[in-house]
């Protein structure tokens, strides 16, 4: 089918819209999570690099939401700020907070930004780095496949984002082997993060009822196929960093059908706080 036909056929259009929500919501939420480190990341240069990647992901979300708008969905701001958690289609990996085992004792508020106070007091950089590793490698695999998508606007976008995503993978590919082999503490932190995050990372590839439609129409490969490619990419990097996969991991699913962890509600409360004050305000 041509691009125009894909956008008009009811079943391919529904599947395409679902795919674009998954892509956009993953980008928006990981972008927001990573931006929680802005200004307080470890070392100045890395703070800037990580914040810049967070900006990239917010930009990718806008690009996917713009494609949705072209298919008749609401405008990008309404998509990002006007939906409750049950209408988001992101995976659980991107929603997780960065507190690891430090969940028990939130510190007293130091400023008017309780999220930031908590990141300063309890944030675990290893969680963010390993999440960024798992996510960016999946992003690269997925977007490389989408460069061949039969839906040309999506293929065009995938080609346009290639360079930024290449940097995102280079970032983790550079830092992970160094930190994995630096000190016992750095290795242990990364290994704990990898063990905790891996089941959620597998959940990035939650199969959906639209997989077959998308694959048959040449819009996107089925999720299990992408998961195989991703695992082949990350295995040697994990190994080269002295990290091992947790045994018998079962994937955490649910995000692609709107069944989320409570963390997503926390993210959206922060992300949508200002918009909710007055949705009709002009910026």
């Amino acid at each position, binding site marked *: 089918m041509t691009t125009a036909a894909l956008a008009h056929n009811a079943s391919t259009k529904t599947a395409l819209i679902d795919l674009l929500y998954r892509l956009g919501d993953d980008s928006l939420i990981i972008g927001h999570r990573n931006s929680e480190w802005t200004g307080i990341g470890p*070392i100045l*240069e*890395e703070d*800037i*690099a990580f914040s*810049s990647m967070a900006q990239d992901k917010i930009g990718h979300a806008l690009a996917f939401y713009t494609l949705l708008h072209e298919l008749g969905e609401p405008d990008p701001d309404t998509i990002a700020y006007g939906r409750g958690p049950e209408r988001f289609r992101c995976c659980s990996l991107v929603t997780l907070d960065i507190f690891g085992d430090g969940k028990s004792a939130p510190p007293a508020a130091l400023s008017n930004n309780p999220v930031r106070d908590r990141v300063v007091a309890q944030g675990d950089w290893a969680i963010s780095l390993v999440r960024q590793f798992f996510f960016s490698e999946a992003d690269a695999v997925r977007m490389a496949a989408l460069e061949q998508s039969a839906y040309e606007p999506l293929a065009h976008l995938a080609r346009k984002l290639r360079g930024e995503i290449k*940097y995102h993978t*280079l*970032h983790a590919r*550079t*830092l992970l082997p*160094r930190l994995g082999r630096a000190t016992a503490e750095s290795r242990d932190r990364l290994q704990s993060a990898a063990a905790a995050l891996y089941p959620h990372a597998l959940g990035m590839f939650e199969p959906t009822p639209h997989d077959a439609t998308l694959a048959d129409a040449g819009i996107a490969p089925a999720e299990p196929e992408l998961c195989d490619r991703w695992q082949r990419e990350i295995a040697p990097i994990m190994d080269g960093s002295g990290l091992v996969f947790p045994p018998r991991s079962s994937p955490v699913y649910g995000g692609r059908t709107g069944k989320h962890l409570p963390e997503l509600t926390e993210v959206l409360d922060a992300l949508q706080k200002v918009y909710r004050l007055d949705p009709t305000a002009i910026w």
Partner: protein
Amino acid sequence: MSDTQWPVYEVFHQASRGEPHVHVGSIHAPDGDTALLLAKEQFGRRQACVNMWVVPAEAIIATEYEDADLFEHGTDKSYREAFGYETTKRAKAVGDREEI
């Protein structure tokens, strides 16, 4: 006070192929590859860039400022100053403009 940070790398940036690499600043990093990774976001994100160099600052051998008089001319030698390079650049800019 001694510097307790990572080594300093000087960063050079090339705006397009064939142009000279221009010094744009310096960063701290534990090694060359990490220096390139971090330099990309420090210096590559606000201007066009096709290529970047990082050089360990300690690898640079420099003159002393107290020897700046080494470069002064005792007599008028303006006839051999390299103004031609600037002229070439201006000529190229005019040419580029006229092509459009």
